[in-house]
């Protein structure tokens, strides 16, 4: 087990209240008619969230893409802060405990330690294997898991679990969001360069699936093999400039060059360096994501400002997945007036549940695998280019279900929770 850095989130709220000269007690002083409501508010119940994270410093081809140290965690903190503001009116207090392990480490000891300290809601930013290692233990202990990091489809398909909610989108949702836009643009002929690592292969699979779903065509494909050299500094700009055109020279003519390089081996080096001038999309160029740091639509400015003020940086996709998970727990606690995981889970699983997350419409869960439905942002690193689902991609139930594996195709067979 790696380093463990537990801490309780310091509540900003009382500080804010004190600064404004109005105390919570005064704000909630009951008038006789309201005594019953206020009495309920006086009994503060505590709802403990845990954030279990596999972390190691990561390299990136561009220094701008190196993940911030607190990626994801920062979003959870803002979400817990928001929950606490609401909690002051309802007598609920939310805390966040953080534990970090190494990417290949056994997740069970850190998980068990968090649960033994009272955290019954675990936000997990773990590999699929690590997540599965704790899922069934969590079920037996009555603990709810919110997957904020892993995009693996198998966690929602063959390996789905009734006690694991996914706020992170899947690779198929991301690929479908991108493919819909390219097809809407009538850019239907694609070539694909995929990396040689497992995540790259999985994203390439998702892109291939998307092409057949929406009427695109991958007319050629090539693997960019990771030869294990240092990524950022060894070849230098001159070598990349000469090698990438040659690498893409043999492709037949195409509309778009797709890149599947989650492992950050070559993707950033593709745009502007191809043999023929073509747009690049996938993990480089036009990138599908759960959130974009420049999104200002649908009240986005507000969460972006709040996040930037609290963390001194822009909000990224994993931050949004974690914020949304924290808010889902908060929303369920508010609506049910409860801190009990079973009660909250029942509400989250009910038809009444929805969550607002600055994406222009309410988000709900797919009941067959507990994946959060959500629009996918398409951005170029500077701005949001578009948001999928695209106009014209219809669905009998929810247009958001045109993204990713839909109910008729699912391999998930959940037994009743």
């Amino acid at each position, binding site marked *: 087990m790696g380093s463990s850095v537990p801490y309780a989130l310091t509540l900003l709220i009382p500080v*804010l209240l004190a600064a404004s000269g109005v105390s919570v007690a005064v704000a909630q002083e009951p008038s006789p008619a309201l005594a019953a409501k206020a009495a309920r508010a006086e009994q503060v119940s505590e709802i403990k969230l845990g954030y279990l994270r596999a972390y190691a410093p990561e390299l990136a081809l561009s220094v701008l893409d190196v993940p911030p140290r607190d990626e994801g965690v920062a979003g959870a903190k803002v979400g817990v802060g*928001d929950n606490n503001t*609401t909690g002051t009116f309802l007598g609920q207090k939310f805390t966040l405990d953080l534990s970090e392990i190494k990417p290949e480490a056994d997740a069970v000891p850190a998980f068990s330690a968090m649960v033994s300290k009272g955290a019954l809601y675990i936000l997990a930013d773990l590999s699929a294997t690590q997540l599965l290692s704790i899922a069934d233990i969590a079920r037996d202990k009555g603990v709810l898991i919110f997957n904020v990091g892993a995009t693996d489809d198998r966690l929602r398909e063959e390996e789905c679990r009734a006690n694991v909610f996914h706020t992170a989108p899947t690779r198929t949702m991301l690929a479908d969001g991108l493919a819909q836009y390219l097809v809407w643009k009538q850019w239907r002929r694609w070539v694909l360069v995929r990396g040689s690592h497992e995540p790259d292969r999985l994203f390439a699979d998702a892109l291939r699936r998307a092409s057949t779903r929406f009427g695109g065509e991958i007319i050629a494909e090539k693997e960019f093999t990771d030869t294990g050299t240092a990524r950022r500094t060894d070849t230098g700009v001159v070598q990349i400039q000469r090698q990438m055109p040659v690498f893409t020279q043999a492709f037949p003519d195409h509309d778009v060059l797709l890149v599947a390089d989650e492992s950050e081996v070559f993707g950033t080096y593709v745009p502007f360096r191809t043999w023929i001038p073509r747009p690049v999309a996938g993990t480089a160029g036009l990138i599908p994501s759960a959130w974009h740091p420049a999104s200002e639509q649908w009240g986005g400015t507000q969460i972006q400002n709040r996040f930037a003020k609290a963390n001194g940086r822009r909000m990224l996709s994993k931050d949004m997945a974690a914020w949304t998970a924290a808010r889902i727990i908060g929303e369920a606690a*508010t609506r049910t007036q409860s801190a009990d995981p079973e009660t909250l889970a029942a509400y989250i699983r009910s038809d009444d549940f929805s969550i*607002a997350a600055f994406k222009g419409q309410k988000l709900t869960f797919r009941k067959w695998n507990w994946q959060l439905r959500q629009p996918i942002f398409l951005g170029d690193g500077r701005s949001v280019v578009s948001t999928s689902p695209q106009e014209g991609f219809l669905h009998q139930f929810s247009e958001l279900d045109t993204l990713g594996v839909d109910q008729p195709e699912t391999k998930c067979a959940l037994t009743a929770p």
Partner: protein
Amino acid sequence: MLQRLTFLSAGFAIVASIASPASAYMVYVSNEKDNTVTVVDSTRKEVVRTINVGQRPRGITISHDGKFIYLCASDDDTIEIIDTATYEIVGSLPSGPDPELFVLSPDGKTLYVANEDDNLVTVIDLESKSVVTEVPVGVEPEGMGISPDGKWLVNTSETTNMAHFIDTATHEITDNVLVDSRPRFAEFKPDNSEVWVSAEIGGTVSVIDNASREVKHKITFEIPGLRSESIQPVGVRITADGAKAYVALGPANRVAVVDAKTYEVEKYVLVGQRVWQLAFTPDQKTIISTNGVSNDITFIDVATDEAIQSVTVGALPWGVVVHPN
């Protein structure tokens, strides 16, 4: 100086009233994206003036005597005061950070402001232009409604999903009523009996009983051919006789007409794209909608509930207020 300005503005007001027909009202529209306020003549339905204002203008209201427009310049963290006689910015109010929407007390003396970034409602005394107090509320406060008797202020918080009832005598919250997701607007009935709260993402309008502070009814909307997700209620206005309500439905591009007694939706009026806020003309014969994405406003005839005409204004029209006389 202030006296001279008042005198000047009175002079201009007389000239203006002679120049235009008796039933013409000036309509003021805040344009969020191009930092302007558009002035539209309600009779000719033409733009008569464009005023350059501060950054990201959103909430807009007017003093009861019609002399001053108050405008939330959200990104400038201030409320600008615009003289309606000269269309000059003649002052500002200490709004607190990121003011989005506000409401004027019925006696015209106090302005209640929602500070979206700081989870506060700021109470401003207009005569002294000073902050009386700040009231901590839920996350992302926006909607502001005041009871016609002036006793109760309702603020809605968009992420907390509550309507906070604030006693205007003590500035204390007495009730927090849960409503549906992203409550955007609060509007009292003229008889103080109910407050209507729209929920943009929830897609509903909650009717809250002002005596029991319970949600007594939830109004839902269904438009054939439209997904329920695209029906996003924002602005709400109720006629002075308390009979009819109008609800702006955002990307549904329609304004719903609701029987304010039975809560039945009677009609959907097609206006422009992404309709957010609404304002009546003082004679209540017309209601005007701001249509953010199509950059226009639509005049709706209150007698027939037909859209009469749309007028192009600035970029991303947000709020609208009509001169009281």
